């Protein structure tokens, strides 16, 4: 079979000499023809995209792909997952190996422009934070002058730390440790006063690694912005719109109280916003080039945004994250869906 795919590839290469590929940029057609969505995910990041004990991918980023597949194909299980490393992910998307990249990728200007990508919304707002032992009595990151900080070497974590302390005219000693386990051990053994990494990471380290989670506090300041969301290629606006509006639909559903359980009865709702979203009032699906039940399919497959969050990363999971800035705008968070009309 491997030989067969080699032959197919060779034929495709030869064919390319004669004619430009007819399907470039036509992601939607390609997905429909194939009957499945190819989704690039992380090789293993608990809560976002990681294989479970049965080898089935699960997580917040994974459910975004399930929702998109449900909206386009009406079948949430019609997703093929491709595990990608941090180095591979953009090439895989650019070269068309995957249709959509849903792999805890931070939305930045250069990625959005020079790399030829389109970020279709934000599904998780992360940011670098600080954790300190409660007994130090520190309540704000601005009181950390002179502290010893445990940090993993990495492109941005270390730089953000240095930038933040310099900008606020404070000193610090960095204890830089490569391995995740060792940096945890160093912090909990008291080798440093402060531990810094992404806030979602801090919360889960506190809940799973700390001998006593109540002895540690995560300070309110986030010193970097890490908005994570699904990404598609430049130049295919139709598919870009679909992914964007599936994300909005999941958020809107939470705002309107539509859940996986009640989406059936919500079809008969009098609320015009709900009727438009779920397709009881026609028009939205057609505008996206999908069937009218696109949002209904997505929500009945994975639930609304809040349900996805609670299922994979929320307080009852092993990550144990609060909604925080990932709450709806109506409750003081940043999740805001554009009106579907």
């Amino acid at each position, binding site marked *: 079979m491997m030989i067969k795919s080699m032959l197919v*590839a060779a034929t495709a290469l030869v064919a390319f000499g004669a004619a430009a*590929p007819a399907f470039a940029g036509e992601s939607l057609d390609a997905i429909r023809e194939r009957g499945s969505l190819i989704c690039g995910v992380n090789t293993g990041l608990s809560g976002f995209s*990681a294989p*479970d*004990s049965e080898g*089935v991918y699960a997580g917040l980023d994974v459910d975004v792909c399930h929702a998109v597949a449900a909206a386009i194909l009406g079948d949430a299980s019609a997703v093929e997952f491709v595990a990608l490393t941090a180095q591979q992910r953009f090439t895989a998307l650019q070269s*068309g190996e995957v249709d959509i990249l849903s792999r805890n990728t931070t939305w930045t200007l250069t990625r959005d422009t020079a790399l030829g990508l389109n970020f279709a919304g934000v599904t998780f707002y992360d940011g670098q934070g600080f954790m300190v032992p409660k007994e130090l009595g520190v309540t704000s990151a601005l009181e950390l002058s002179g502290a010893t900080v445990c940090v993993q070497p990495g492109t941005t974590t270390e730089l953000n730390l240095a930038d933040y302390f310099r900008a606020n005219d404070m000193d610090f000693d960095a204890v830089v440790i490569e391995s995740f386990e060792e940096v945890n051990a160093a912090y909990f053994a008291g080798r440093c006063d402060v531990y810094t990494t992404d806030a979602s990471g801090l919360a889960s380290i506190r809940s799973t690694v700390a001998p006593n989670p109540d002895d540690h506090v995560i300070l309110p300041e986030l010193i970097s912005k890490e908005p994570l969301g699904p990404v598609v290629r430049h130049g295919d606006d139709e598919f870009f719109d679909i992914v964007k509006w599936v994300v909005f639909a999941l958020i809107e559903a939470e705002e309107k109280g539509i859940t996986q359980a009640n989406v059936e009865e919500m079809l008969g709702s009098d609320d015009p916003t709900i009727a438009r979203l779920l397709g009881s009032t026609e028009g939205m699906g057609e505008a996206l080039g999908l069937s009218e039940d696109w949002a209904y399919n997505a929500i009945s497959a994975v639930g609304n945004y809040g349900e996805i969050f609670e299922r994979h990363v929320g307080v009852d999971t092993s990550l144990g994250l609060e909604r925080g800035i990932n709450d709806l705008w109506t409750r003081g968070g940043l999740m805001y869906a554009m009106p579907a009309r």
Partner: protein
Amino acid sequence: MTQVTDTTPQDEGERPPALSVGPLGWMRANLFNTWFNSALTILILWILIETIPPLLDWVIFSAVWGDVGPEPCRAGEGVGACWSFIHEKGRLILFGLYPSAEQWRPMLVMVLFIGLVAASARRELWSRNLAYAWGIGAVVMFVLMYGGVFGMEYVSNTQWGGLPLTLGLSTIGLVVAFPLGVILALGRRSNMPAVRSICVVYIELIRGVPLITVLFMASVLFPLFLPTGVTIDKLLRAQVGMILFAAAYLAEVVRGGLQAIPKGQYEAAESLGLGYWRKMRLIILPQALRISIPPLVNTFIGFFKDTTLVIIIGLFDLLNAAKAALTDREWAGFYMEGYLFCAIIYFVFCYSMSRYSQNLERKLQTGHARR
């Protein structure tokens, strides 16, 4: 070591002193013959006593076994290895993302594969039929892995993983790379300048970069040269990269063997009127390959372990699947167990290869080997 022992009862006075024969005598002669050796013996004994019981305790006696979840492993001090982690994640480590309902298929593939390898290890079975068996076996294994026929569900190769992937990548890699390596080695010793320079450039170019770079090129750079929408299977790209890499190394090993063959052998073959290919096939290569067995197996073992580098292109080979299993927050921290489990599997395969090659060397030796 059979000794004829005199069993006639002896008087007390006729027996040699207890300290010069038997186990005590042996210990005195070998372990305590000088003060330095005595000190070393005592030191080593002390180290063993200090390390072995805690290790056994950790691995076996205090370990947590069975399907009990992560809680008993976190019960506190004195709890040993958490083998319930392997119980829970063993499936993921061994078979990666392969759908669990279809798990019997990779399992059957492994049984078939190990059966074929075991059959090939017996020299009396070496015949044309064995080659046919491998050919049919390979087709059956691919059909089982992919499915899509005979009512088996189709499983895309993006879902392959674990041990079948590790074995597949290394076996296919070596089987294809070996003849390529032989040809490259012959090419490098060829009298034709064009052939020779192509082979030299190829070998030196590939050997000049790390395998991780070759894989990276294959998985990250290569797709950028293709038009959008045209993609070549990720697994295939990795496999081709590994074949090209292994071939360059094998070529140098084989060339070492070729250089060890005396010039007289070449001349003798030529005086028999053999052409180049028959000379190589009948006279030179059989001798050259035989003396290359130790470095060849060395390369095989290295290559088998190098397959773990596919981690950088997101394939779930045995080690990467174990790493993925370790990312589960519920089971966070059981690194020792996960890596030990993989290490044992790798050891079993590498050690078998090594033992078999020693065996083969003994059987094939015709005068080169030193006793």
